[in-house]
């Protein structure tokens, strides 16, 4: 995937030089290994800082809502789906965008690498063909890159961008996977077990809202968690407040979430918040046959209806 860097720079240079866009949003190398940072450039002399490898898991669509200018944006499969969602929700116009599509083979989960290294951060990391190597003094570790993939990337079925103006490489093969094994596992538990399961899952939550901030869908001027009158969610760390937050967050992204994994990636305590959103995703697919951000001219599932929609429990 590192070969993409050259193509991204080339595209950015051309776009800026020809004045096709005002800014280009991409990544640059972070200051520590395994962390790249979003980078917004406005002039041609900055293009050589643009960078791409398997640590670009942040969702760049997050930087688009309500931008007035013309934007070139680097987008992997999930980013492109969130761009489609933004267009549907009138957060940005297609004409404003020049999408530099990146066929993706999955992003690395820094936590998995850390765990494999007994919690010690590497001082150096490099990507080889199909492998990742991390080094710090005594421990020089090389492993298959698939071993370290983010959870959502393992089950991703849209690795290729769904919309783009140009591609930085050949399209990759899409995976044929069952996306919902974990959801079904939870569904099979008893109500009490399920309550306990989620109680444990969210117990370490700090309510820092990093998961919300990383999510491209969370662009409301005032988030429900910040509303005070009426106050829907208490500000405390009480379990019920945390539960309410996670519950409503999941509901709020229903039919919009692309399972990009940015939320999970951002969580400082490693909570698998996608366990909530994936249930919504599964239900929406089963009940309404809808997948978020894939088709550009279909209304989102909660913004439409069919006369014969299922109503299993309505009296």
């Amino acid at each position, binding site marked *: 995937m590192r070969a993409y860097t050259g193509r991204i720079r080339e595209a950015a240079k051309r776009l800026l030089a020809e004045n096709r866009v005002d800014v280009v949003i991409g990544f640059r190398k972070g200051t520590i290994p395994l962390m790249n940072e979003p980078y917004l450039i406005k002039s041609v002399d900055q293009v050589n800082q643009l960078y791409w490898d398997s640590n670009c898991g942040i969702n760049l669509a997050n930087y688009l809502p309500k931008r007035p200018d013309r934007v070139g944006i680097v987008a992997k499969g999930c980013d492109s789906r969130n761009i489609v969602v933004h267009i549907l929700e009138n957060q940005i116009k297609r004409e404003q965008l020049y999408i530099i599509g990146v066929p993706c083979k999955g992003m690395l989960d820094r936590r998995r690498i850390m765990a494999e290294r007994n919690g010690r951060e590497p001082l150096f990391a490099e990507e080889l063909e199909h492998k990742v190597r991390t080094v710090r003094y005594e421990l020089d570790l090389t492993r298959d890159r698939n071993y370290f993939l983010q959870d959502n990337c393992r089950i991703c079925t849209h690795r290729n961008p769904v919309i783009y103006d140009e591609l930085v490489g050949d399209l990759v093969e899409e995976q044929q996977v069952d996306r919902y094994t974990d959801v079904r596992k*939870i*569904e099979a538990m008893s*109500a*009490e*077990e*399920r*309550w*306990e*399961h*989620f109680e444990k899952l969210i117990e370490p939550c700090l309510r820092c809202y990093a998961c919300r901030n990383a999510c491209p869908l969370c662009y409301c001027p005032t988030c*429900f968690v910040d509303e005070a009158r*009426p106050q*829907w969610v*208490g500000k405390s760390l*009480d*379990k*019920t*407040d945390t*539960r*309410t937050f996670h*519950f*409503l967050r*999941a*509901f709020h992204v*229903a039919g919009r979430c692309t399972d990009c994994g940015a939320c999970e990636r951002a969580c400082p305590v490693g909570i698998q918040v996608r366990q*909530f959103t994936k*249930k*919504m995703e599964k*239900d*929406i697919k089963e*009940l*309404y046959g809808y997948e978020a951000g894939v088709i550009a001219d279909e209304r989102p*599932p*909660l*913004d*439409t*209806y069919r*006369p014969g*929609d*299922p*109503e*299993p*429990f*309505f*009296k």
Partner: protein
Amino acid sequence: MSEWEPKIVAFLCNWCSYGSADLAGVSRLQYPHNIRAIRVPCSGRVNPKFILAALRQGADGIWVSGCHPGDCHYIEGNLYARRKFTLLKNLLDYTGMEPERLHFSWISSAEATKFAETARGVVDAVKTLGPARHFIKREAEVA
């Protein structure tokens, strides 16, 4: 515990279900007093936040009722609501709340008997479950 009576918050749409409650009253039909009716313009107006708020403030059960599909005063409000509540109920079940605490129905303003019957059904279902504790804060419980 034998004294315990559930509190049910009922969101009733102005044009149909609230009318049926009214008619039930005028017709002297009996239904349990556990129902706390809240009149809303349309079942589509009921935000999932309202339902959580009710649970957080001590409701033992929630009942949302609107016009029959096709009869909505706003043409389609209840059809959006149907999707919203289906997903909401599924997510509540999934995260471990008893499904019998949440009820939805379509009742027109002429169906006073259906209103009274459904009300009895809802109260019975919630009564069997006992008080809802899931969304109640610990401190609040002591007080």
